[in-house]
């Protein structure tokens, strides 16, 4: 046996002898380390998380990647699936058998008269080592121009925050759109119709209309359409996407999708990350902390983040807060000081970075000795992407600091 092979064998047998002492702790540590990384990244864009999370309401991973991806073909595995993010494996419908061809056929059968092309899909099952949700997409032309339409089926904990995020209209403070309605249907399913844009800042006028249905059993049916033949980088070919809002609703509520997903296992229930207060309680506390005399014109939350848009009569001002445990090693930015109790405070005023003209962004970032981080930001606009509506935010740095240092964040759940 050559030395290299002996070496390989010896390394394998030596390596096999090593087992982590506490795998659970290792995974917890990894998760915490990962969250810290994300949080550090977000420290630069505190409200960035919510902008992206608003996109959760607009773009489930697998549905948005569905249309106009780079790979062609309509094979069951591979093909379009390469551009579609795999749905969470843990919520994979495990007794669902449907092929790509069936998915495409079902989608086409639910469309009004017209021509279809560019059919793609994926069946339930496996592609490489990834499990795939059933999906289908086509380019549809009713004679008035092409538009792409896609649908995906998955499951989600119907009682979880993620599910609510899918079927709750985002605040216009967070993302711009034309129209959005959310309703509960007679069978208890929640439904949202969103009519907005591929790019919320409308640097391209591609419209993105989306219909999302979550049944009481946790089946998620998600359809997206564009007024262009592809999701991105394709010029618009018609004024609006091909299906009306009512037709989108008919599409996602069609019985065939529920039948397809009848064998889906009950999704694992969603848990809030340990130590992180719920978005709802943060929102409540943030609003309660605001100085008297400010009118709250909008508010919302997403796990770990809450915001309010306030108006003191001189224009709208967006205020957002993050509460994150385990952030003891995050470096603070701006002017940093340490309070007698050991809490570190970073104060910073800088220009906004979402492109709104004249926007300023004031931040007070605080980290308690136990690693709890409370960071609050305020803007001189109600929407970061829109121009400034006033000279400075509606709260002073001292007021922001007072809110961030409030002991109530330490006991919030």
């Amino acid at each position, binding site marked *: 046996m050559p030395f290299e092979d002996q070496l390989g064998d*010896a390394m394998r047998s030596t390596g096999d002898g090593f087992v982590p002492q506490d795998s659970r702790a290792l995974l917890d540590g990894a998760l915490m380390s*990962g969250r810290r990384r994300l949080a550090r990244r977000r420290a630069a864009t505190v409200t960035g998380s919510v902008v992206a999370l608003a996109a959760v309401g607009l773009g489930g991973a697998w549905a948005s990647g569905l249309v106009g991806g780079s790979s062609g073909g309509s094979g069951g595995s591979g093909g379009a699936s390469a551009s579609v993010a795999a749905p969470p494996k843990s919520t994979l419908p495990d007794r669902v058998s449907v092929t790509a061809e069936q998915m495409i056929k079902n989608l086409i059968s639910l469309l009004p008269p017209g021509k279809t092309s560019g059919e793609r899909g994926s069946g339930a099952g496996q592609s490489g080592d990834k499990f795939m949700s059933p999906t289908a997409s086509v380019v549809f032309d009713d004679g008035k121009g092409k538009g792409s339409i896609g649908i995906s089926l998955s499951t989600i904990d119907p009682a979880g925050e993620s599910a609510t995020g899918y079927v709750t209209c985002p605040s216009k403070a967070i993302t711009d759109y034309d129209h959005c309605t959310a309703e509960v249907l007679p069978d208890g399913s929640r439904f949202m119709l969103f009519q907005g844009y591929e790019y919320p800042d409308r640097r391209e006028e591609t419209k993105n209309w989306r219909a999302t249905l979550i049944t009481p059993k946790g089946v998620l049916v998600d359809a997206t359409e564009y007024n262009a033949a592809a999701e991105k980088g394709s010029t618009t070919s018609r004024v609006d996407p091909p299906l009306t809002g009512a037709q989108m609703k008919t599409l996602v509520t069609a019985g065939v999708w529920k039948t397809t997903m009848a064998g889906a296992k009950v999704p694992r229930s969603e848990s809030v990350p340990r130590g992180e207060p719920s978005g709802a309680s943060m929102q409540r506390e943030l609003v309660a902390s605001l100085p008297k005399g400010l009118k709250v014109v909008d508010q919302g939350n997403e796990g770990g983040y809450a915001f309010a848009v306030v108006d003191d009569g001189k224009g709208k001002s967006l205020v957002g807060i993050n509460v994150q445990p385990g952030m003891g090693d995050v470096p603070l930015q701006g002017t940093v000081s340490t309070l007698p109790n050991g809490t570190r405070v970073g104060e910073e005023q800088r220009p906004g970075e979402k492109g709104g003209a004249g926007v300023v962004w004031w931040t007070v970032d605080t980290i308690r000795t136990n690693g709890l981080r409370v960071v609050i930001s305020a803007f001189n606009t109600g929407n970061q992407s829109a121009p400034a509506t006033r000279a400075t935010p509606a709260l002073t740095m001292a007021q922001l600091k007072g809110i961030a240092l409030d002991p109530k964040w330490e006991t919030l759940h």
Partner: protein
Amino acid sequence: MRKLGQPRQPKQARTDEFLEFASGRANHLFRAACLLTSGDTHLAEDLVQETLGRMYAMWGRISRIDNPAGYAQTILVRTFLTHRRRRSADERPIGELPDRPMTTDEDPALRLALLDALARLAPKDRAVVVLRYWEDRSVEETAEAMRVSSAAVRTRSVRALAKLREHLGGSLAELAAL
């Protein structure tokens, strides 16, 4: 062309999917890390944690790539090499043996001899050995993972093998045959 970045998965779905991946890979990564650190299990745990943490932070993108498991191994090696740079000032003394008993009934003499020999290699040489002879990666794949040229990998391989041969001598075959 995507201009906005990939749309995100719901947070919980992302965490669940990541944990499923991480729990499936943690042991393998840990073994690789132990070889890279020549048996420093504490450091190995830190490296795995950091590696998986990086994977989590990038998960939205990573879950789309072909081989996240292989990518995690690459990240581990890169993390190890960065880490060595960072703490080169307080480098472990060469030849120090693991401070924790290993849970195995494998031949301890072989393990100790191998770990000792690995510890005598420069960190980059060790990384080459782990990637090439434990991971069975090609010279080109190893070069890509380490962000060095193929020629550098070949040079390091030759040097590392010579050194290992010198320290392990014929004992490898002998020990392996036990």
